[in-house]
């Protein structure tokens, strides 16, 4: 009997550990790579802390971008989470990127809504706005080109003045 109760308690603890009750997302930090000379792909990172009422740790959160989902990873403490991905520089999104964060329940509801087409009841935990100004590819006009033009103009002026005097 004791073992059955113990087993039920264990099961309850396990199931509670998988769910984050009334998750509150705080300390959101975002990062994107912006140097196209240095990088092959543009990386996007969202880091956040999740406070659960039941103190659950290492629970999955899902980031949704244009209907596609990314699973979060948790750090060693299980309190800080990261949603990260990368895209080839030529195809990388830029400007404001909105990432909606869902918990397991919200993710399930979204998947159902994708099948039924009714998104009216879908509510995310938090929306993160990521700003990526596009990878910097250097100045549009090279400084070497400007300097060449400048000294070309000076040379032309000097040469035309010499010709004027000699004539």
């Amino acid at each position: 009997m004791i073992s059955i109760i113990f087993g039920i308690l264990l099961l309850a603890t396990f199931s509670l550990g998988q769910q984050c009750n009334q998750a509150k997302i705080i300390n959101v930090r975002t990062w994107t790579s912006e140097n196209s000379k240095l990088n092959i792909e543009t990386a996007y990172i969202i880091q956040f802390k999740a406070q659960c009422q039941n103190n659950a740790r290492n629970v999955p959160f899902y980031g949704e971008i244009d209907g596609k989902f990314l699973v979060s990873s948790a750090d060693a403490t299980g309190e800080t989470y990261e949603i990260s991905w990368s895209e080839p520089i030529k195809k990388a999104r830029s400007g404001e990127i909105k990432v909606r964060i869902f918990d397991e329940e919200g993710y399930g509801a979204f998947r159902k809504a994708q099948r039924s087409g009714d998104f009216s009841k879908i509510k995310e935990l938090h929306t993160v706005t990521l700003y990526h100004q596009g990878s910097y590819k250097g100045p549009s006009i090279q400084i070497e080109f400007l300097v060449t033009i400048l000294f070309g103009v000076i040379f032309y002026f000097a040469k035309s003045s010499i010709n004027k005097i000699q004539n």
Partner: protein
Amino acid sequence: MKCVIFLICALLANFVYSETVVADELEDAKLLIAKNVLNNYIVEGLNLTIKYTIHNIGSSPALNVKLQDENFPAEYFEYASGFNVAQWGRIPPKSNVDHVVVVSPKLPGMFNLTSAVVTYLPSEKASKVQTGYSTELGEVYIQKLSDYNRRYASQTINWILFIIIASPSILIPYFLWNSSKSKYQKSKKLKKSN
């Protein structure tokens, strides 16, 4: 003849056995881990982006997955974003997860990029923790920041300095010529008026 039949039987038995083993193995979760560098160049003081991709090619979810990369010690690297230990409670079968970290090398020179370690439970019944290793990149060269800047950074300041330095040799003769020209034109006008 008997020997040949025995050999064929042995081969067939071995084939059937290996097929069963593969099927059994894939019933559990099996993780393949790729560690990739998303940089063209690795430069001292600039961001080095590392991407880990974990594929579960098995038929069961991998549980308590923990990725640990001790390749970037604090005396050589600084973590700009992301964590060196990442955990997932569950990775479903036939799916993959990504984890990106950004580190910044503190020192230039050769550095060995080794593999990350992943531990997981291959099924709900499993009690033995499975260990997997990511791909490793081997030795890479971390460039000096000054070398990288000399080769790839914008040389705007250097060219502005060049213009400032070169301008006296152009402007001084020009002003001398211009002043003598104006004097000549003045004397020419005076001669004409007389």
